[in-house]
């Protein structure tokens, strides 16, 4: 049943058949979308009517291709901006949190750590609605008391960034903590005994050691943001992110341009994955 143990042929054959089925299940929806993105038809599904690039480049009354659809391109751009800021803030605060919980001792550390990982067990919908509630409350209060109208506290671009950051930081913290656990503390002690300040030690020794994890965490936070919809949908203002825009289109006006967008996402992710894989193999670690 494992590599080193022999087993019956039927057993291996059945096992291999199951694994094949699993991978077909996994890849089927992706292949379908990719093929149908090039279908010369005005409907999102079958039948196949021939090859066409219309849903990427056309700009006629009937067909508006992906690259000619201004709204769609705008929501892609919004998503990229959102992802960048979420990744930036999450990486910053998540790394700080990792340093705090791994290297410092203080009262209430346990309860605080529990809070920091709680976004893992809070449904995204609840996180979104509670942030919407309290930001609206704060906005109303500021307006009633000081006559201030704070854009930030209404559903808007920045509120989406804040909402996604609230759980993004948790994932960054966990990824960076995992690397920090492998860190040789004597390096820090040596630097401290040579009269480096605590801040210098963190900046010159700990952070460089953490760099691969920090870069990885930045990418993960960006991807989390780019695909998030459960939290975003409560906080989004007049400029939808790509998932919110796609969701509305799937619900109310599906044209094959959805296939074209999906194809671009699948192609981009697959290329990035293969690039990362080849790079990894070259460096000799899998």
């Amino acid at each position, binding site marked *: 049943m494992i590599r080193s143990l022999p087993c019956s042929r039927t057993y291996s054959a059945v096992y291999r058949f199951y694994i094949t089925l699993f991978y077909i299940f996994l890849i089927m929806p992706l292949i379908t979308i990719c093929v149908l993105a090039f279908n010369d038809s005005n409907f999102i599904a*079958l039948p196949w009517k021939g090859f066409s690039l219309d849903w990427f480049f056309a700009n006629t009354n009937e067909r508006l291709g992906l690259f000619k659809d201004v709204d769609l391109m705008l929501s892609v751009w919004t998503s990229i901006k959102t992802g960048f800021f979420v990744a930036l803030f999450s990486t910053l*605060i998540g790394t700080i949190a990792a340093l705090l919980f791994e290297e410092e001792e203080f009262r209430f550390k346990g309860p605080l750590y529990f809070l920091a990982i709680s976004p893992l067990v809070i449904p995204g919908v609840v996180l979104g609605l509670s942030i919407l*509630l309290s930001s609206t409350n704060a906005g109303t209060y500021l307006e009633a008391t000081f006559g201030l109208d704070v854009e930030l506290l209404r559903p808007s671009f920045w509120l989406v960034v804040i909402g996604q950051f609230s759980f993004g930081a948790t994932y960054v913290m966990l990824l960076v903590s995992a690397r920090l656990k492998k860190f040789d503390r004597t390096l820090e002690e040596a630097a401290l005994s040579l009269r480096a300040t605590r801040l210098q030690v963190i900046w010159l020794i700990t952070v460089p050691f953490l760099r691969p994890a920090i870069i990885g965490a930045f990418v993960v936070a960006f991807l989390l943001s780019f695909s998030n919809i459960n939290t975003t949908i409560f906080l989004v203002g007049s400029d939808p992110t790509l998932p919110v825009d796609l969701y509305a289109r799937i619900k109310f006006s599906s044209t094959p341009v959805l296939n074209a967008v999906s194809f671009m996402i699948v192609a981009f992710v697959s290329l990035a994955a293969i690039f990362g894989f080849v790079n990894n193999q070259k460096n000799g670690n899998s």
Partner: protein
Amino acid sequence: MKKRSGTFYLLMVPVLLWLMLLIVIPHLDMVYRSFRFETDDWEMVFSLNNYLTFFRDQIYWLTFVKTALYSIGVTFLAFVVTFPVAFYLTKVVGKQYSSFMTLLLLIPIWIGELVTVYGWMILLRDNGVINTFLINIGIINEPIEMLFTNFSMTIGLLYMSMLFMIVPMMSALDSLDDSLIEAASDLGASKWTIFSKIIIPYTTPGIVSGGIIVFMLVIGDYVAPNILGGKSSLWFTEQIYNKFLMSFNWNEGAAFGFLLLGLSSAIVWVALKLSGQKLEKVGS
């Protein structure tokens, strides 16, 4: 207590701000709002009315119970479907294939839920790929109605969540020493004994963390039930969403949100107690 350096506060303050402003206060606010009720004279009073609505209206608590049971079911299904795959990739297939096959598993995660759910929508439609295929090879004459049912919703929920279970199970299996299995096999243990006495106990931490991640994704999901589920298969998140963005009854929405949070926390807590795990472990 020893004197703190400035650096400590430099680390402490941002983290405290994050946790207080974005986690603690919003949730307290949600609980507070859930007990507010607007009377007929537009006066806000303290009341249990929002929760009473939930229990009085059958559709709400039925959806609530259904969401809970389905989420547990899908989590279990995800384990059954993916455990053989995790085992195959770590213990059976040659090393040269396993890293590429693992990479394939990660691609749907990165693509994101919306695109994959959309893909399933195209596959399962009446004039979709599966029905067209089955009609063309002559197995059926009329398309089978698969989209907008509990079946299509389950497929969508399973697909978007199950891969998150494989990764923690694989890292648990990776650290299981093959010689334990070899020794058991040499001593004449059957496959089933090896599986239930060695493999499962050893990988329990991985199974529990994976299971909790899957469960949370499923119970808090909005897209798969909404796009693939249709009218007959309501999900509790859809009720919350409707309260907020359709009927603008935020107080009831807050109460429903709090109920969902209570439900998921209770089930996760029970799962952790039953398996003797700690939440702190789930993160790592």
